[in-house]
């Protein structure tokens, strides 16, 4: 492992400094920096180690038939499956096309769900009458396990992307709506009072105080809800589709190809992680006004 060797050399360097002459002024901060770097490297090395150990055990277990390779597959077969999809395409067409379809459905569902959720959330958060009228209905709709709507959407909108977009929308809408609603409700009353005194009318209070104040709330829901959008798209495809990663899962399952199911899962995880990273990047740009230490859990 290149990572491990790097951390080892760094560790031996610190050991040398510690054992050698008393450090001159300034080397202490250097030593501290090096220690922090070492710690980081150790963490990364340990992470890679955990992954390697897990995959290794799995592979060895499958080869020695301790775990049944037919049901649980094995990493090398999953990799072969992914590689085969990459080079030769899937039974439904190229792998890129499948990923493209799923992403397209998830993204459109997400965008529609977010826009509706934010607009309605802010509107109901700002206008009490609307909140009182629609509040109970939204609660009832939210109580329905929305994933069961996917078959209905399939009947309504057919095998094409529209039915998947619809199931993504219903999954995304509610968390975004509730967060936007809460965000609009919990705006610091001082800020609103200040804006009104400074001369802002209702429209400006909504656009320039309530919405910026609610963005923190909304953004936390965006992260979670993109995951939901993917779920919606995949489940929709799984139930019935002509293209997409969910269909890959369904097709692999239909031919008892466990490696195929895992391979599709792996691809999905990568796709989800990449989009998550992009969202975090956008968030950092948007929240320059926030103190850097707040809300950064990692």
């Amino acid at each position, binding site marked *: 492992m290149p990572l491990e060797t790097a951390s080892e050399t760094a560790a031996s360097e610190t050991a040398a400094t510690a054992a050698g002459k008393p450090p001159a002024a300034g080397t202490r901060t250097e030593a501290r920096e090096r220690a922090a770097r070492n710690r980081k490297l150790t963490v990364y090395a340990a992470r890679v180690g955990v992954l390697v150990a897990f995959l290794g055990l799995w592979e060895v277990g499958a080869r020695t038939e301790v775990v049944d390779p037919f049901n649980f597959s094995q990493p090398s077969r999953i990799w072969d499956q992914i590689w085969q999809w990459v080079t030769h395409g899937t039974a439904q067409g190229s792998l890129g096309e499948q990923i493209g379809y799923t992403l397209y459905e998830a993204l459109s569902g997400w965008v529609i769900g977010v826009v509706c959720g934010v607009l309605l959330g802010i509107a109901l958060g700002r206008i009490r009458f609307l909140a009182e009228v629609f509040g109970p209905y939204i609660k009832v709709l939210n109580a329905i396990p929305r994933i069961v709507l996917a078959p209905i959407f399939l009947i309504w909108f057919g095998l094409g992307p529209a039915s998947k977009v619809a199931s993504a929308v219903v999954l995304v809408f509610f968390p975004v709506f509730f967060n936007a609603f809460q965000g609009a409700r919990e705006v610091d009353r001082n800020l609103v009072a200040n804006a009104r*005194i*400074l001369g*802002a009318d209702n429209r400006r209070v909504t656009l320039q105080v309530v919405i910026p104040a609610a963005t923190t709330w909304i953004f936390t829901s965006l992260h979670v809800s993109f995951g939901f959008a993917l779920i919606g798209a995949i489940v929709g495809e799984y139930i019935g589709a002509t293209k997409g990663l969910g269909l890959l899962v369904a097709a692999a399952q239909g031919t008892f190809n466990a490696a195929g199911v895992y391979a599709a899962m792996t691809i999905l995880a990568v796709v989800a992680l990449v989009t998550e990273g992009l969202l975090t990047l956008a968030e950092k740009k948007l929240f320059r006004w926030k103190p850097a230490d707040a809300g950064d859990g990692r």
Partner: protein
Amino acid sequence: MSTPAIELTGATKRFRTPSGALHTAVRDLDLTVAQGEFVAVVGPTGCGKSTTLTLVSGLEEPTEGEVRVYGEPVRGIDPQVGFVFQQDAVFPWRTVLSNVMAGPRFRGVPAAEAKERARDWLGRVGLAAFEDRYPHQLSGGMRKRVALAQTFVNDPAILLMDEPFSALDVQTRALMSDQLLELWAGTSSSENAASVVFVTHDLDEAIALADRVVVMTAGPATVKEIFTVDLPRPRTVEAVRLEPRFVELYREIWASLGEEVRITRERGAGRAA
């Protein structure tokens, strides 16, 4: 005498508390503030001083009685009014400059002119070099100065201040008080001097700043006594505190205020028991 800047007659404000009971915050309050006058309002904690300000600002309407600003009954928020809040009320997602520009922009001033006026006021509060910062990058005192600039940039004829400096440390508070007096003196050179109502629980601050000190009763608040502060202007807070007349006034007013503070404290103790 011309029409008073602020006139409260028999103003009463009742709120419905979350438990459903009626709470009277302000009862039968009469108060007149002349144009260009600096009035400090002192009273025990939680007695309804802040409510009085929200009535004048138009953020709240009185349940009974009347509130007039320049002879006109208050209906909604009056554009002549400026309000400095106790807590931070600057917009955290706007830069310092953009915060100060907010008022003029809300009132339809073109961006270029608003920027120019905002820069002028930022200079006066000594924050010209910080216009690109976000509020979280500033100290508490600097944020308060942003709030002052944000309020003064609108040229308010009536300035309402709700314990604006109570969250600051003692030294910063003295500096801010001096700065406030300076800014206010700046407005009084023009023909329409700003009238100030300054709510505080700090009697030192009240005497050092004001022309008159209004002592409120324990809640529900009403005017108990009004004292005229005959200390010469221009004042600086640290210097005026050492004058014998200041000490004399302090003793006089505290005799009146202390009683109300004691009543409030006993009530609180009774509630806690």
